[in-house]
């Protein structure tokens, strides 16, 4: 059957696959025929993702990238891949007067340094094949807007947004494409510690022309496009998946 978005014969590495966008991406990629290598910190939830994957040949690697020097060890565990999607990310709503070096280091480490350095090591070990695809999760927050107490998160996404463009230029010679997706507010666990109440989330929903927050699958579909051969002439771009939020 004709399908330009098929991921058959492709091996895709997905970080942050224990939950949220990473979990949805892993599952949807498997449905599109990809062999996926999923990684995350939480063994139980990563295994739940693994059990929902379609097809076989997939792999799961429980790994905590908190220690950045562990990245080298991790790369030895993965095969050659056609694509990588960096979904591991955290938020930390902190009013600016309380931003400090510790918070900056923590959020930048997870949201920026780790995905960038993982990509670098994958390339150094020649594990990303020619014609491959790198996808970062950017956000509307950062490159376009921010929110109350959102400076820490925004700054990491602004950084990723910029790095993706530089990387896209440098890797074009290898026919490796680098793109981002820019989600609005998505229904995931990122606020599971209750930083935002149900009422606050309901208030936020009113700001969306399409009158709801997004689902993780809706971001995964855009990622599938960027991983597939359909986007082989697309690099340095950003797919906006925001329910119309930034129109106003």
């Amino acid at each position, binding site marked *: 059957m004709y399908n330009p978005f098929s991921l058959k014969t492709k091996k895709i590495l997905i970080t942050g696959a224990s939950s949220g966008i990473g979990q949805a991406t892993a599952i949807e990629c498997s449905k599109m025929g990809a062999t996926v290598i999923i990684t995350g910190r939480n063994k139980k939830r990563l295994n739940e993702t693994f059990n929902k994957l379609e097809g076989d040949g997939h792999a799961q690697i429980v790994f905590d990238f908190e220690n950045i020097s562990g990245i080298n060890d991790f790369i030895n565990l993965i095969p050659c891949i056609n694509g990588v999607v960096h979904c591991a990310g955290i938020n930390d*709503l*902190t*009013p600016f007067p309380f931003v*400090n070096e510790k918070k900056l280091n923590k959020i930048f480490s997870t949201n920026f340094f780790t995905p960038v350095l993982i990509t670098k090591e994958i390339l150094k070990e020649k594990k990303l094949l020619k014609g491959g695809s790198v996808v970062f999760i950017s956000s509307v927050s950062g490159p376009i807007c921010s929110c109350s107490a959102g400076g820490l998160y925004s700054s990491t996404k602004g950084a990723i947004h910029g790095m993706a463009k530089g990387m896209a230029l440098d890797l074009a010679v290898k026919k490796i494409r680098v793109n981002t997706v820019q989600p609005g507010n998505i229904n995931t666990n990122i606020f599971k*510690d*209750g*930083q935002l*109440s149900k009422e606050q989330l309901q208030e936020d929903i009113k700001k969306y022309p399409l009158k709801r927050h997004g689902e993780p699958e809706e971001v995964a579909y855009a990622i599938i496009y960027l991983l597939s051969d359909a986007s082989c002439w697309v690099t340095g771009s950003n797919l906006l998946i925001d329910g119309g939020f930034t129109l106003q």
Partner: protein
Amino acid sequence: MELNDFLKKFASVFEETPIEKFSGDTKYMEMEEWGSLVALSVIAMVDDEYEVELQGDDIRNSNTINDLFEIIKSRL
């Protein structure tokens, strides 16, 4: 950890409310200046000053400043 000291730190997070309005019995969520940004500032201040992590639910399920004081003391 002492209540008066905590009241001063709690009050410092507010911009417009004078310190006299703050006591152990103050129902902080009924204060005019209260809002989500102030709530996040309280959480950040407590983490900074006492290295205790308050969750959104701790703030929403408590009533008075003293309630919060007791929660923080129990987690020191």
